[in-house]
């Protein structure tokens, strides 16, 4: 089980987790199971179940009520989606480590992709990343078919990503969603059976382990948007912070926002508060609650006098089947509520839209909000071809047109769909445009031009990542290109679009996920997602923890025992070059450009010999010469066990122009085993290095779960720093050494 290529520190964590899970299992195994639940008593049990339901029949009433409302308001049947997350989608995760006997087939296409890079950009059909998907001759025909099917659409816009085909009818989609995915899965299973290994993953640990790193790195970076947002305040003079986002100019939702005059907060229980903030004096001037209990809060946007709240939910509804029969149906949805907040004391709902599927992500650019959700069709046996609402997503209770559903030319095993819609906030009751992509899942990166969806593909000998690019300007969502690269992509910061090219850093697992030799690659893809250049076999035995690109230069961190920070020259898309490699102790999980020629890293300090974690580490790199990057300062906070910055980049307060950095951290009290929460604010100057401005306990807001760590946000407006938690806000005077100057509790 011990794998040399896997870093010991992580291995240790992994073992500890397994051990705890084992302990839970063992202790639970000794629980006495009530006699009444014994299968021998099934009849009585079924009776009891029914009765007890009668007793707590509230939810049924609610469900019936819901169904009624739904019928009444929509006049369309509630989409009937049974979301049982089971075998199909997760198969790939469960048996990652099979070794296929017939190396040839899938490996081949990958080899072509490698080759392609060496050739000139013109060699389009060996087609690197386009891989086996693009070359299908049937594309063009089917795409043409799609064109005919949707004559009302602007034909010049009908260009579909190579490798994906727009549906021409619901019947065709039915075939794709059920028959083709099933075939793909069978094929894969046969291949897997042929394998000798038969490795069964234990308790999800191993597949999670890599992604843990990935997950935390998801917390990576953002361009310094703060600067941009500053100055839009009502007064025009006050600077204030804004949500740390992936791409400058592409807003992301969060639970705390400010416009320089007011602080907007959302709590998990569904309360939206508007707090006027003038230095230390704060008061709640407006408040509203989401009355729909089925909704869970995700995030919000604030733009002038418009405020949007994104929620997700799960509903059971009863569906009339005729003959006194109802069927209980359940569905996942996300909603976008748009409010007018011109009068802060009167928060007025202007409109709401709803989209099928579980919450995935959202973005806002200009007047448009983009909603991304993951939709699962009903099981095959429940699906009727004549009822497309069972397998095609609806938005605002309206079924997507078949031509708006795209399926891969080469069938995938997954039949889940990624749904992307746009909403023009001028018309907050309407979905402007929707697209659904069959077989897509994974994560997203949104540049100013494009939405990229990327997800792992485990079918081949080696794991690959599929990437699909959509354009989204002014709410018009069009699939533009699809491609594939070898390996796994750590997070949204591991991709970057610049000047028409997509640069990607990926970790390859050549001999399968767990056992094998890891190495790292850098790929440059053109706007068709075909490979133009690459560098491979970097940092063998290590994996990517963080990355950041700026113009023609890219930086990424791999780690095993030491942290090499690579810098790469991307000025020639056909010939990217590694410029330098800096080895330091520990590793950065989040990178952020910090003023001229500086790169900030947030990560962990480790012991280079044992790999043991020694504390949270802030690093400042001098990147004035990318070929010779230097770590010029660092600060280590010992004993920090968790840092929210690495879990969710949006939670970081970072504004290089204002020279301020803030995040929450969790520390286990070694005496009482209680999780203590802190919020730290730092600044940096070349003479003195990192300086602590505030290190404030947030324990007064914490319960035993420690969830508060994820909810607390630091923001600033002018000279006041505000620490916003789920049950209040504290103000600190930035001019007076962060002296506490006001508190508001609710």
């Amino acid at each position, binding site marked *: 089980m011990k794998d040399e290529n896997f870093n010991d520190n992580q291995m240790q*964590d992994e073992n500890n987790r397994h051990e705890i899970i084992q302990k*839970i299992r063992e202790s639970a195994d000794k629980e006495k199971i009530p006699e009444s639940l014994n299968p021998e008593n099934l009849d009585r*049990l079924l009776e009891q179940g029914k009765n007890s339901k009668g007793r*707590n029949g509230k939810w049924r009433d609610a469900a019936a009520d819901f169904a009624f409302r739904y019928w009444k308001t929509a006049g369309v049947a509630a989409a009937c989606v049974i979301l049982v997350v089971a075998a199909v989608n997760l198969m790939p995760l469960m048996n990652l480590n099979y070794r296929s006997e017939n190396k040839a087939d899938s490996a081949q296409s990958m080899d072509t992709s490698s080759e392609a890079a060496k050739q000139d950009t013109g060699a389009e059909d060996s087609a690197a990343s386009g891989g086996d998907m693009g070359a299908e001759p049937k594309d063009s025909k089917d795409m043409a078919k799609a064109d005919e099917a949707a004559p009302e659409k602007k034909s010049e816009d009908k260009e579909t990503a190579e490798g994906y085909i727009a549906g021409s009818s619901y019947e065709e989609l039915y075939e794709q969603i059920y028959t083709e995915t099933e075939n793909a899965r069978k094929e894969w299973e046969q291949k897997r059976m042929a394998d000798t290994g038969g490795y069964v993953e234990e308790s999800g640990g191993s597949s*999670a382990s890599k992604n843990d790193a990935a*997950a935390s790195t998801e917390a990576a970076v953002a361009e310094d948007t703060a600067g941009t947002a500053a100055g839009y305040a009502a007064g025009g003079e006050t600077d204030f912070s804004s949500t740390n986002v992936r791409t400058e100019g592409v807003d992301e939702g969060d639970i705390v926002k400010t416009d320089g005059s007011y602080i907007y907060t959302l709590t998990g229980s569904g309360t939206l508060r508007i707090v006027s903030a003038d230095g230390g004096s704060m008061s709640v001037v407006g408040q509203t609650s989401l009355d729909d209990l089925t909704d869970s809060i995700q995030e919000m946007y604030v733009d002038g006098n418009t405020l949007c709240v994104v929620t997700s939910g799960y509903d059971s509804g009863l569906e009339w089947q005729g003959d006194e029969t109802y069927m209980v149906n359940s569905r996942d949805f996300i909603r976008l509520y748009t409010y007018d907040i011109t009068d802060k004391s009167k928060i007025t709902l202007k409109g709401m839209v709803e989209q099928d599927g579980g919450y995935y992500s959202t973005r806002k650019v200009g007047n448009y909000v983009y909603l991304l959700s993951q939709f699962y069709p009903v*099981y095959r046996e429940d699906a009727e071809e004549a009822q497309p609402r069972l397998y095609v997503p609806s938005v605002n209770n309206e079924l997507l047109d078949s031509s708006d559903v795209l399926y891969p030319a080469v069938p995938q095993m997954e039949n889940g769909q990624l749904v992307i819609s746009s909403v023009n906030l001028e018309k907050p009751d309407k979905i402007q445009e929707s697209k659904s992509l069959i077989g897509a899942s994974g994560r997203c990166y949104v540049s100013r031009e494009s939405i990229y969806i990327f997800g792992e593909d485990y079918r081949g000998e080696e794991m690959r990542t599929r990437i699909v690019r959509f354009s989204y300007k002014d709410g018009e969502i069009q699939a533009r290109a699809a491609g594939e690269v070898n390996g796994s992509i750590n997070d949204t910061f591991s991709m970057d679009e610049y000047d028409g090219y997509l640069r990607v850093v990926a970790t390859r697992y050549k001999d399968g996920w767990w056992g094998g030799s890891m190495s790292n690659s850098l790929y440059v893809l053109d706007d068709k997602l075909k490979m133009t250049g690459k560098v491979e076999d970097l940092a063998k035995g290590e994996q990517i923890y963080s990355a950041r690109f700026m113009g023609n230069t890219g930086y990424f961190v791999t780690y095993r025992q030491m942290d090499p920070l690579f810098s790469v020259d991307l000025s020639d898309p056909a010939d990217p070059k590694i410029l330098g490699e800096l080895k330091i102790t520990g590793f950065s999980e989040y990178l952020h450009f910090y003023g001229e020629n500086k790169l900030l890293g947030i990560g962990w300090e480790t012991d280079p010999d044992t790999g043991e974690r020694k504390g949270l580490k802030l690093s400042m790199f001098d990147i004035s010469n990318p070929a010779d990057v230097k770590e010029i300062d660092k600060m280590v906070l010992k004993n920090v066990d968790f840092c929210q910055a690495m*879990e969710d980049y949006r939670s970081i307060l970072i504004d290089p122009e204002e020279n301020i950095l803030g995040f929450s951290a969790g520390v*286990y009290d070694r005496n009482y085993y209680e999780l203590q929460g802190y919020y730290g604010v730092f600044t940096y100057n070349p003479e003195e290095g990192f300086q602590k401005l505030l290190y404030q306990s947030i324990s007064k807001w914490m319960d*035993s779960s420690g969830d508060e760590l994820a909810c607390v946000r630091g923001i600033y407006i002018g000279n006041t720093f505000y620490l916003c938690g789920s049950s209040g806000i504290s103000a600190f005077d930035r001019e007076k050494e962060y002296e506490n100057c006001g508190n508001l509790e609710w």
Partner: protein
Amino acid sequence: MTDCKQLAYEARQGSKEAFAQLYQAVYQDLYRFALYVLKNPEDAQDAVAETVADAYAEIKKLRDSEAFKGWIFKILSNKCKRKLKEYTRKTEPLYEQEGSVRGDLDQDMQVREAFFSLSDEERFIVAMQVFGGYKSKEIGLILHKNHNTVRSRLNRALKKMEEILQ
């Protein structure tokens, strides 16, 4: 596997026997899951009973025979979620630990106590994984959370237990 497939087929055709056999294979984990999430034996029992009744009534919807466990857990997890929501509206304290002093307990009790000290959501996530065999992505879909969030919560919860149990 084939047995299971056959059983599921029969259950779908209306065989109570077959259903009972499918149930037999999972009921202990169902109860453990409910108990560990709800912290209350009676409610756990109710939740399982309701789940079985629902599953039996809806067995026709079971698509994939191997998926019985995942399917019935999904039903149960929704019941538990609903009960947890009801709890938040109640004011009386929930299930109190039988008063014991740390150190007096044997290890299993300590583990249980440590587990019960987790938040609702953490218990839910850990139990989904331990008893239901769900992955972060699936749990995320059920809880409407990003799977990365689920993963970090899971790790945090386990880390917390590790600290407590040290």
